[in-house]
């Protein structure tokens, strides 16, 4: 077996693809997601305003909107212009302030503002909408405050009147509602899953494709399990190391919230690495033709992102898709991560997920004979 390990290490040194595909890709993606989403919450979103009133009151409103962290006002002369900008995706929302707003407010005629929101852009649309709502509610509050002050009410009582109920919102596991934290924590392990499946399929399949599998079996003394173990041990160490470095970068260096213990995350990462390798062996074993196996692996691992359910929750997907989601290690890793990093529920909370991931390890047994025959006989088409 050690002979196989040494052979594999030599292969890794000779062909740069193995290290490039794992270390290079992972480093790129880590830099990408950490810098791309570093703001955490979008700032200075362009929000359109069509100010038909152009009074001191409406101008004041627009200034307030512009001053919020979230928004930056873009003024338009007409509804037409603003709508076009909305359709072009240049702004995610705009607000129409009708003519005569100021005099209507003074006369108590309740003018109506109209918001148009482009909810095709989820994050931008929802946030711009929220910003507009806040602005109008604040403004309503200000008008009430003036009216109540005139009646001689004190300021504390006025607050109780303007906003009788306050919502004190807590975000469990991501107090800052940081979009980067939410996405990166699952996307990076997802990329790792993808790399593991592809590289493992590639390294096992390449022996078949380039007809070197018999040489490998010789080295392993004719034992298939020694060949596979020897081949995968260097990769398992490499991926586990990458996974752990990744955990360290996220939870230690970048300071992403971690309610539980980072040691448990290391453990979960290690189990995920094993599960992904098992899936890879299953794919190449079931289809010992590299070109097909690699295409299938690509299709499978890309789907993993959607079916992990961290963007759109799995329980809201159709029933037959929910069952399918269980066939992806990333799904279980995500559930594990939620228990450990968000709820800190420890072993009792996440052990089912570890069990599910370990179940993947039975997959290679199913294709063991078939892969062994393929290795010995090389009886599958090479191209």
């Amino acid at each position, binding site marked *: 077996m050690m002979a196989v390990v040494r052979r594999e290490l030599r292969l890794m040194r000779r062909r740069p*693809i193995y290290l*490039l595909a794992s270390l290079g890709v992972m480093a790129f*993606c880590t830099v*990408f997601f950490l*810098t*791309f989403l*570093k*703001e955490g919450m*979008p*700032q*200075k*979103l362009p929000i359109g305003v069509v100010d038909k009133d152009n009074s001191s009151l409406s101008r004041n409103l627009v200034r307030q909107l512009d001053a919020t962290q979230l928004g930056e006002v873009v003024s338009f002369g007409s509804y037409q212009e603003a709508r*076009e900008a909305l*359709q*072009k*995706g240049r702004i995610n929302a705009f607000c129409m302030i009708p003519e005569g707003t100021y005099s209507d*407010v003074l006369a*108590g005629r*309740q*003018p109506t503002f*109209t*918001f*148009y929101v482009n*909810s095709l*852009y989820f*994050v931008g*649309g*929802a946030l711009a909408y929220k910003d507009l709502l806040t602005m*109008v509610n604040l403004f*309503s509050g200000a*008008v*009430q405050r003036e009216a109540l002050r005139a009646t001689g009410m004190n300021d*504390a009582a006025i607050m*109780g*009147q303007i*906003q*009788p*109920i*306050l919502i*004190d*919102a*807590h*975000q469990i*596991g991501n107090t800052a509602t940081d*979009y980067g934290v939410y996405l990166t924590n699952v996307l990076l392990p997802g990329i790792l899953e993808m790399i593991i499946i592809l590289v493992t399929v*590639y390294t096992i399949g*390449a022996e078949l494709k380039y007809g070197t599998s018999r040489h490998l079996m010789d080295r392993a003394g004719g034992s298939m399990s020694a060949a596979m173990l020897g081949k995968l041990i260097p990769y398992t160490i490499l991926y586990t190391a990458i996974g752990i470095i990744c955990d360290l970068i996220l939870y230690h260096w970048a300071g992403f919230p971690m309610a539980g213990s980072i040691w448990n995350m290391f453990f979960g990462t290690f189990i995920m690495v094993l599960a992904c390798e098992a899936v890879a062996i299953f794919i190449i074993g079931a289809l010992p033709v590299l*070109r*097909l196996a*690699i295409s*299938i692996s*690509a299709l499978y691992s890309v789907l993993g992102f*959607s079916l992990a359910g961290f*963007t*759109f*929750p799995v329980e809201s997907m*159709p029933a037959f898709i929910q069952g399918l989601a269980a066939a992806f290690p990333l799904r279980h890793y995500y559930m594990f991560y939620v228990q450990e990093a*968000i*709820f800190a529920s420890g072993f009792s*909370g996440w052990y089912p997920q570890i069990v599910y991931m370990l179940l993947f390890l039975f997959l290679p047994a199913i294709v063991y004979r078939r892969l062994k025959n393929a290795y010995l006989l090389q009886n599958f088409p090479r191209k």
Partner: protein
Amino acid sequence: MKRLTYIGRWLSDWYAIFTNELRHIFSDSGVMVIFFLAGLAYPVIYGLVYSNGTVDDMPVAIVDNSGSSASREFVRGLDATRELAVSHTCANMAEAEQLMQQRDVKGIVMIPEDFDDRLAKMEQATVSTYADMSSFLYYKNMTMGANHVMLSQMREIQKERFSAAGYGGQQLSQLVQPIRYEENMPYNRTFSYSIFFLSAVLLIVIQQTMFYGVSMMAGTMREENRSFAIMPDRLKGRGISRTVLGRGAAYWLIYMAIGAYVAGLVPRIFGMPQNCPFGEIFVLLLFYVTACVGFSFTFSSFIRRRETVFVLFLFLSPICLFLTGFSWPVSSFPLFWKLFSYIFPSTFAAQAFINMNTAGADLSMVSDQMIGLTIQTVVYYVLSCAAVFVENHMLKRKTA
């Protein structure tokens, strides 16, 4: 006469290269899997996965320490929203936290003991919400549901108080709500995830499957000691445009068909809004598919072996998706990544498609994106010609 023969020769060479390439594509099972299985099935799978679109009636636990009529009304209001459903009523926070940890509920609403007293004393009362942040949709539902109930109850309370103080009629409603507002979400009324996600991902599928397929072909040719750049010998290295355009036309033809299916038929199958005549979507496809062919040719020239493209570049698919700005807004892109996104035709095309197909923009409104695609086409055409030229040079040196 001579000129005519040149054109005639050009066309016949082009045609030979074109049909030859088509033959290669259709006899390669791996490429067929990527083009047809992935290109045709992926959009459908995504459509099915996200067919429900919204998370409705998300289960929340209530800890009502007040037990007053006002708090009960608040709870009833929460249950009535589309976003939330009160699934558990707990005696204390510990119990509710336990439920959240077991993931039976995705949020907790806690109404404190003094809720009713404070309202009676006209002080501010507080309601605490706890959202499970493992998915932003949970957070969105919690926030929208709770705010909705809070605002409507707030207005009720204000109305009661003002009318007790002797206000009435128009004056009362003016005090409670000096400015009214209406909201319009014309393109995606319910914040449906399927419209949001599919609109962006459909066009990514076109570019990515084409890129992977073309690269597999380029790798295969290299392995078989041919090259993507091989030209008819009698041309003495002068047939670059024939080779590029001939091979390109083969992929272009296949992908115009796949593209029409992905951008025209799939949205219809899943009942997505189609606010743009297909003719204009087709024009967008003409530009996009052309740019994709150039993009794929340029970058596939680096691929030496057939399977390596997946191992090395599959990770680009999720990254391209983010670079379209469908989720994280373009206005918040760091400058470097904004420039980086211009490498990919999908950046422009997905933006244009979202704006046209769902927001009903016409071609003139997406002119920026169309110009982007045109520039890409020109640049990538030149680059893929250069790749063929360099490759030929190297091949010749090797044989010489």
